[in-house]
């Protein structure tokens, strides 16, 4: 993951060489940089630190800011707590279902939109853009009634379908760009060499789109893993909770006393997201700006 970050810095290194600057002039920016780093990273650091603290140490009047010999008791408590493992299982199931279905369906749609001209294409693309703006918070009310009518409340399938619908527009929009960037001529060349259209597509286009599939897949994963509101409303039985809902129940039940346990829980929930996020962050930023700046 640092490789990605470093790659970015190689280019900036050259920029700095080209623009000589006295060391002393960098003092103010460096101090400001340190402040920004502290503000950004401290809460995360504090979460991890608290999660390894003993109960008595957490409640001390003078907080300790450097790691002390800690304890794993908070994590053990989380692992043993009711419904934690069912929540992990539910979260994983929903996330994986959403991930694979979103990639598959979005890929088909992206191919249709970027490889064919047909009636309704433009309307579809605009609809995809508009739909992304519909606040999920507003739809939760009727979606609950709809799912209730289909007997899909407290159902992994119901929640997965919901997430799928909210993830698809962005995944289609992003993959569309990736597919469009693969020259059609490559496929056509393979076809004139005797490949079927399908084969040409599978052997030429698919491998070239793979990075896009990874990036959008991680996006879908993070969305489904983090989502809170729909899960809160749709999965209202304790054994159907996903991790965020479980954590919030723990948080509410703790009444501000078991901070060690709650921080351990949120650390566990955040770890996969942070890892996946660092893997793809460059694409997220690049994808949004590339068109905006150069276009």
């Amino acid at each position, binding site marked *: 993951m640092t490789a990605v970050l470093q790659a970015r810095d190689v280019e900036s290194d050259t920029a700095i060489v080209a623009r000589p600057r006295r060391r002393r002039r960098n003092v103010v920016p460096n101090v400001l940089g340190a402040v*920004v780093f502290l503000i950004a990273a401290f809460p*995360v650091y504090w979460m991890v630190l608290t999660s390894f603290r003993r109960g008595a140490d957490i409640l001390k009047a003078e907080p300790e800011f450097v790691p002390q010999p800690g304890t794993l008791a908070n994590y053990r408590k989380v692992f043993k707590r009711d419904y934690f493992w069912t929540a992990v299982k539910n979260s994983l199931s929903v996330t994986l279902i959403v991930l694979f279905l979103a990639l598959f*369906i979005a890929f088909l*749609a992206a191919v*249709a939109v970027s490889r064919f001209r047909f009636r309704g294409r433009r309307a579809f693309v605009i609809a995809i853009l508009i739909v992304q703006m519909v*606040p999920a918070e507003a*739809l939760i*009310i009727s979606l609950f009634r709809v799912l209730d009518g289909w007997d899909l409340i407290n159902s992994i399938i119901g929640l997965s379908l919901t997430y799928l619908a909210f993830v698809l527009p962005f995944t289609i929009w992003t993959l569309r760009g990736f597919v469009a960037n693969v020259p059609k001529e490559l496929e056509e060349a393979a076809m004139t060499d005797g490949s079927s259209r399908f084969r040409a597509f599978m052997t030429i286009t698919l491998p070239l789109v793979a990075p896009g599939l990874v990036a959008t897949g991680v996006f879908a994963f993070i969305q489904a893993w983090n989502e809170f509101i729909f899960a809160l409303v749709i999965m209202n039985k304790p054994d159907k909770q996903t991790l965020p809902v479980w954590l919030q129940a723990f948080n509410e039940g703790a009444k501000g006393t078991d901070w060690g346990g709650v921080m351990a829980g949120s650390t566990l929930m*955040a770890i996969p997201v942070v890892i996946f*996020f660092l893997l793809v962050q460059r694409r997220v930023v690049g994808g949004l700006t590339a068109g905006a700046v150069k276009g």
Partner: protein
Amino acid sequence: MTSSLIDSDLESKQQTESEGSPGMEHVDGIIPRRRRVRPLPYTLLFPAVAVLGLMLGYPIVRLVTLSLQKFGLKQQFGAAADWVGLKNFRTILHDPEFWAVLRRTVVFCAVNVALTMALGMAVALLLKRLGAKMRLLVSLGLMLAWSMPALASTVIWQWIFDTQYGIANWALGRQGESWLSNPLTFYFVATIIVVWMGIPFIAFTLYAGLTQIPEEMMEAAAIDGARPWQRFRDIVVPVLKPILLILTSLSVLWDFRVFTQVYVLQRAGGITRDTNLLGVYAYRTSFGGNHFDKGAAIAIIMVAITVLMTMFYLRSMSRTEEL
């Protein structure tokens, strides 16, 4: 032109199926046309359209019908829902609480967007001036903040602002200060969370934009005697204008619908009436008060406002991206 092709194609199919119909004689003329309508793109689109239609389209329609019906506790248990026209909207729009919530939401959104954009821009400019190592460090910190799940972030800040043991109170020497039980300090904490979570994306995107500004342009301006502020106003802002527009619109859309942070802080602080924002208000009206009809009406007003703002976003988007 292609539109008529599909329609006539459908018609011709029906006609050929009903054998011996008078349509038969037209078939000859239609066949060469039919070849041009390719079913493949529609087949590829079908799953996406089906999911979006069932899980987004239908709920939107259902939201509209809910808002036009009487739908309370009884109807939840199967009683028939009567149509009441625009009654729910009238009730909502005459409710001073709704207007208070709306005002609060707009102010909260404006303050958060302004803070996120201004601080994001400041961090982007800072990133540009930093050396490679320091920039890597700051980027890592921002990345951490950015990647935190909304719920985890809220819970962390809740811990930091905890009344008894939170380090905010320790640092400020105000042991026992209850941040979440007063609307103003409640929003202060909520704003910190939203802005803290929002800055990284804005800063990275603007930084990416800044690196696209030709170095010579800035240098030429500096040689001509332009002060840093003038360079910022006359070069950076105009060049980044498209990105700034998109980012501002996106931030407005996101901060207008803030839910998780407010919901979790409310559960912790115990006051809801004076801290509701539009999203949480619609949720509480529906699920807390069992007024799905009024909740739906509030949600529709929320969607309507969002759509208006989206138009603005799409307009700035369509200038930069080819549809």
